[in-house]
């Protein structure tokens, strides 16, 4: 590879690079559709990353690692849930606290695990499909979690769009007062959505430490959780568009890494900053397009207290 970039490899690695953000964004999307703004995604992701890595490295099973990360992310999310839903704390402040706490906790737990190699994750063997030229490499040569994330896009879409439970969740997000008056358990619905968001963020974090990187280093997530939050806005709170957003972002990340490796005549720091710059640019374009009203759930980030 002398200064050239292989487009097939680029697209294939794009899918891997996008998966953690996609997972976290899907989880946050569900939470936000229920009217909860959880800014703690970064904290839940990095906790998932460290918990997943420790569980996988000490047990030798990647799947045990992913399981532990899901539970770890959900547990941390429930701290946020209890604070904001039961104790009615400010969602913005609590989310920030969750991120700060998660970052500290992760680096605390991760001490002594730096530089250790975790168990790998085998690709799914799709037989003849994987042997197809180009398409086989791009689409049919990934690990199971990549496919799981794609399946999750479909499931979240179907849940929100086609099921009664999804309808209730959306109702709670649009007007908690009205949903409460109709007898729906606002608090329980939101707690469940928050826990789901945490589980997804944890899974996404573990994908970073177990597949993408794959090892534990301090500050491993490097803002991935915040990007996931930006992608939810980009996606106008729709799962299909979250997929587009995450892959767009993953594409830029992979492209700039390839440019760095290929020795492009652009400063490395500018390339490293480009995913964040592009995120800002995309946010501007999106916000401009929806200047009136917008697609955000009407009760987003508003506390709800059923006063008798």
């Amino acid at each position: 590879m002398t200064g050239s970039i292989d487009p097939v490899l680029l697209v294939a690695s794009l899918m891997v690079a996008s998966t953690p953000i996609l997972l976290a964004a899907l989880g946050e999307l569900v939470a936000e559709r229920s009217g909860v703004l959880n800014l703690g995604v970064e904290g839940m992701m990095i906790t998932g990353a460290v918990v997943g890595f420790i569980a996988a490295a000490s047990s030798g099973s990647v799947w045990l690692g992913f399981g532990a990360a899901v539970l770890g992310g959900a547990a941390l999310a429930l701290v946020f849930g209890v604070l904001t839903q039961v104790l009615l704390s400010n969602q913005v402040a609590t989310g920030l606290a969750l991120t700060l706490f998660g970052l500290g906790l992760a680096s605390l737990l991760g001490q002594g695990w730096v530089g250790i190699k975790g168990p790998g994750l085998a690709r799914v063997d799709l037989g003849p499909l994987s042997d197809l030229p180009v398409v086989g490499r791009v689409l049919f040569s990934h690990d199971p979690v990549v496919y799981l994330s794609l399946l999750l896009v479909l499931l979240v879409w179907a849940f929100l769009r086609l099921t009664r439970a999804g309808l209730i969740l959306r109702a709670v997000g649009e007007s908690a007062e009205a949903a409460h008056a109709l007898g729906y358990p606002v608090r329980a619905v939101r707690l469940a959505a928050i826990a789901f968001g945490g589980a997804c963020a944890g899974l996404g974090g573990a994908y970073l430490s177990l597949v993408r990187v794959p090892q534990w280093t301090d500050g491993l997530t490097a803002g991935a959780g915040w990007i996931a939050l930006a992608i939810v806005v980009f996606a106008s709170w729709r799962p299909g568009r979250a997929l587009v957003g995450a892959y767009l972002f993953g594409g830029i990340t992979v492209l700039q890494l390839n440019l760095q490796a290929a020795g492009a005549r652009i400063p490395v720091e500018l390339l490293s900053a480009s995913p964040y710059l592009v995120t800002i640019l995309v946010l501007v374009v999106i916000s401009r397009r929806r200047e009136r009203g917008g697609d955000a759930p009407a009760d987003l980030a508003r506390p709800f207290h059923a006063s008798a």
Partner: protein
Amino acid sequence: MIRLERRPSPSRAWAAASPVVAVLLTLVAGGLMFAALGKDPVAAIRAIFWEPVFGEFAWYFRGQLLVKAAPLVLIAVGLSLGFRAGIWNIGAEGQYIVGAIVGAALGLAFYPSDSPLIFPLMVAGGALGGFLWGMIPALLKVRFGTSEILVSLMLVYVAENLLASAAVSWLRNPDAVGFPGSRNLARWDASANPELIAGTGAHWGVVAAVAAVIAAYALLAKHQLGFHVRLAGAAPRAARFAGVSPGRLTVFCLGTSGALAGLAGLFEVTGPAGQISIDFATGYGFTAIIVAFLGRLHPVGILLAGLLMALTYVGGDNAATNLGLPVAAISAFQGMLLFFLLAVDVLTHFRVRMGRAGPVREQPAPGVGEPAE
């Protein structure tokens, strides 16, 4: 069954008491965390909170306390203005970095002059750098309605890359062969930000922090702009009818907090840190968020909260050296403190009632001796 019942107006007693209760709860939970890590919890708490102030080496630690508290207070005072008005500047860390870079670059442009104008020029540059970095999310919010939370945060990562590029290329010390990092500003008399009173740790940043506290207090208590800030946070619709322009308020809050964070960065790079280096950013911008909340978004409260948070840094270092407690434990500890504060705050706005909803009974002093039915 435990219920929450909204108070007619927030309890002043609880607003003042909740930081204290939160600190106590954090001590208990932190002790449990330390115990889980296999450390003696009492020794750890003692090392963090007692020894730096009253222990054998307190003379050393007390100086460190002001060094750490100054940037936290300076940044938190700025952030609190925005937080009060519902404008969430989460990117103070980036503004801190850019302030340091701009100020340092301005000074280094005149190296090795010994003009007394250089330091004031650098101070202005630091404030300007932070201000401009804060203007990006402000103007994008005003013009396009972009979330200032996400934009200011993304800019932290951009600033970190800017810092790396300054440290390894365009601000690199030409005399230090091969090493990244700028000239040592603390050792160049024209740019140095030295200790003003020997042994106290007080440098110009401490002076600026105290001035910021006083200015913010005067602004909020006496000035119309301060009233607008408070009104916009408490009742956004009423604020609009009262003629408060949300756009101008956004620019003011993000600009002020950016400038103060930039100042903090400049005082840090010319004093305690000494140079622009890749690891210059230490998270003051994020910790200041906790300081702002712990200080009840009130200037005087922030001053106290900044000192307390500085104590966790200084004491954390002490515990790391003497007990082998990981330094990371401190940021988990700080995050926990914010959790407890937010949790206890429920008592400021709500009464805890036992039993089912019924006729309201007379209560003793708010929050004290809740009757068990």
